[in-house]
């Protein structure tokens, strides 16, 4: 691992160097009702719009790798015959400037299903291979439980990772292209003092975590509590609206629909991200629904994330970013649901 430090005012130079590519970064979306500032990842056109001090974003980076709607193929129809065309819809490198560890971990998890399994998804993989990722250390929010999920630090999946040391940035460099780019701004080898300040910063951050989820033996407990009445209760609260899946950095379920053009000379196959909480998620042609009630659908979501994925990849499909709980109008949060399944509600209150 290679480390450098550079003074803060060089950040703008770094931004300008990379600005010849598409740059995506955290930026302000105004104030919410309770005086909370809202942030989002968006294309940036001005260094001033970049807000590395962001708390969290309502939505993750997911739309940049898995857009809500994407055309998988289009067809030219001529009489009885047809021709299929595929466009991966990515033509340029994107720089992601300022991504927290949880979101980088989320991309690494998505890679496991979408890029590394049989039948890798070229639409996703194409976008993934064209990402230049600059990580940034975070300020844990009261709803962040990434520490419980083991995703509060990230080991790979970025080009460089910045840690704010006050007047300078401490950079961890993981790619040759990041190294080359850093050659263009004045950087220095971190000295003893930088090391000390880095460790202090990390420890100060760790003290800020306040939210926890007990994941010990969770796969077994989810199996044991499959018939637990708590699912029924959560099901009653669930609005079956799919918001949690949309804001989730790791939800990747989708549906495919086919459309014929108005002139009957073309057609397209479009995928739209779906949510396992939506009513017809598991309905087959003919009408049979394998999960007709909201509680079985909600249970399936937890089951997939915290048991099934764990079984397949030895890690959970949740990075503890807490976005789903924040976005849920019914106030259903992962820590509450898991605590209730474990019979620990009182302790958590």
């Amino acid at each position: 691992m290679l480390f450098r430090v550079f003074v803060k005012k060089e950040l703008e130079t770094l931004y300008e160097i990379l600005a010849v590519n598409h740059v995506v970064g955290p930026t302000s979306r105004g104030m919410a009702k309770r005086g909370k500032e809202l942030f989002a990842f968006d294309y940036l056109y001005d260094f001033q719009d970049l807000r590395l001090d962001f708390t969290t974003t309502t939505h993750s980076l997911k739309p940049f790798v898995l857009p809500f709607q994407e055309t998988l193929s289009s067809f030219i129809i001529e009489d009885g015959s047809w021709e299929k065309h595929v466009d991966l819809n990515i033509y340029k490198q994107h720089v992601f400037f300022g991504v927290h560890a949880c979101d980088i971990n989320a991309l690494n998890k998505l890679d496991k299903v979408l890029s590394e399994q049989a039948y890798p998804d070229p639409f996703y993989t194409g976008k993934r291979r064209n990402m230049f990722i600059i990580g940034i250390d975070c300020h844990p929010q009261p709803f962040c439980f990434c520490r419980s999920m083991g995703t509060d630090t990230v080991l790979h999946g970025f080009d460089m990772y910045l840690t704010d040391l006050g007047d300078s940035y401490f950079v961890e460099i993981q790619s040759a292209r990041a190294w080359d780019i850093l050659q263009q701004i004045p950087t220095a080898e971190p000295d003893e003092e930088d090391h000390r300040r880095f460790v202090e910063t990390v420890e100060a951050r760790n003290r800020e975590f306040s939210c926890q989820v007990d994941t010990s033996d969770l796969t077994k407990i989810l199996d044991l509590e499959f018939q637990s009445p708590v699912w029924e209760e959560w099901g009653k609260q669930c609005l079956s609206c799919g918001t949690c899946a949309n804001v989730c950095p790791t939800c990747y379920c989708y549906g495919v629909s086919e459309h014929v053009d108005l002139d009957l000379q073309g057609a397209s196959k479009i995928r739209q991200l779906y949510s396992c909480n939506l009513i017809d998620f598991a309905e087959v042609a003919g009408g049979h629904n394998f999960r007709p009630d909201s509680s079985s659908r909600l249970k399936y979501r937890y089951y997939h994330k915290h048991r099934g994925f764990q079984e397949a990849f030895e890690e959970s499909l949740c990075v503890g970013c807490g976005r789903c709980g924040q976005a849920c109008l019914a106030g259903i949060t992962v820590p509450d649901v898991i605590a209730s399944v474990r019979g620990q509600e009182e302790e958590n209150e």
Partner: protein
Amino acid sequence: MEKGGRSYLGVEIKRPRVAFFELSSCEGCQLQILNNEASLLSFLSLVEIVNFREAMSIRSDDYEIAFVEGSVTRADEEERLKRIRKRAGVLVALGSCACFGGVNQLKNRFNDLEWVKHEVYGDHPVETREVQPLSAFVEVDLSIYGCPVKKEEVEQIVTNLVLGKSVDHPRYPVCMECTAKGNTCLFELGEPCLGPITRAGCDSWCPDNRMGCWGCRGPADEANIIQFREVIRKHNIPEEVMLDRMECFGGFRHILKEMKGKQDKGQME
């Protein structure tokens, strides 16, 4: 214009004769269809329009698909609707007025319709009665929701009709489409919104423009009203604001009736 003779993947596709009608409405839904200059020609080669008062002067009573906009507010409209039903193989309710009564049915809120008539028309009364959707009088084969309807959706639905594909409306709420856009939830901004209980398909048109949903497409499948009331309460939005919105287009009529029934029962106990 040439008739029929088209095929799709070897299957002969007929060019159906189509008619547009309006009952009590603003005719805005029909205007939406005409608004689509870019695709109007393709639309016309897909179907043969034989009756469309807003667009052409020729009238024919020989049609296979009838699109009916608007709600029923007069006896003669009821008769007309029944005549259309007899002639049409497929009757399509076009827009929220036809599907649920629409904005028109707001007057049903008043107990004394005579008073309403006098307030609106003064000394020049017209015949008007309780507003009803098409389904109160005839069987409706297909509903196209929205106030107004979304033209792209109408085109897709017509294409599917012509091809013999089923027309599947989203069964989930507007939130799904709204959050997919990366919108900031309007509840965060203190705005009431019926998104969590209203059927999607509109592409979250209103919330995209920072305007809370008014429920023009009616309730989503198994909309969780009980929890939604809880959400409203938690966000300190008066329940009347929510009820006002739910009453606006008539789609939630049955749900409101049920809620009112429960409330009355509760008061009696």
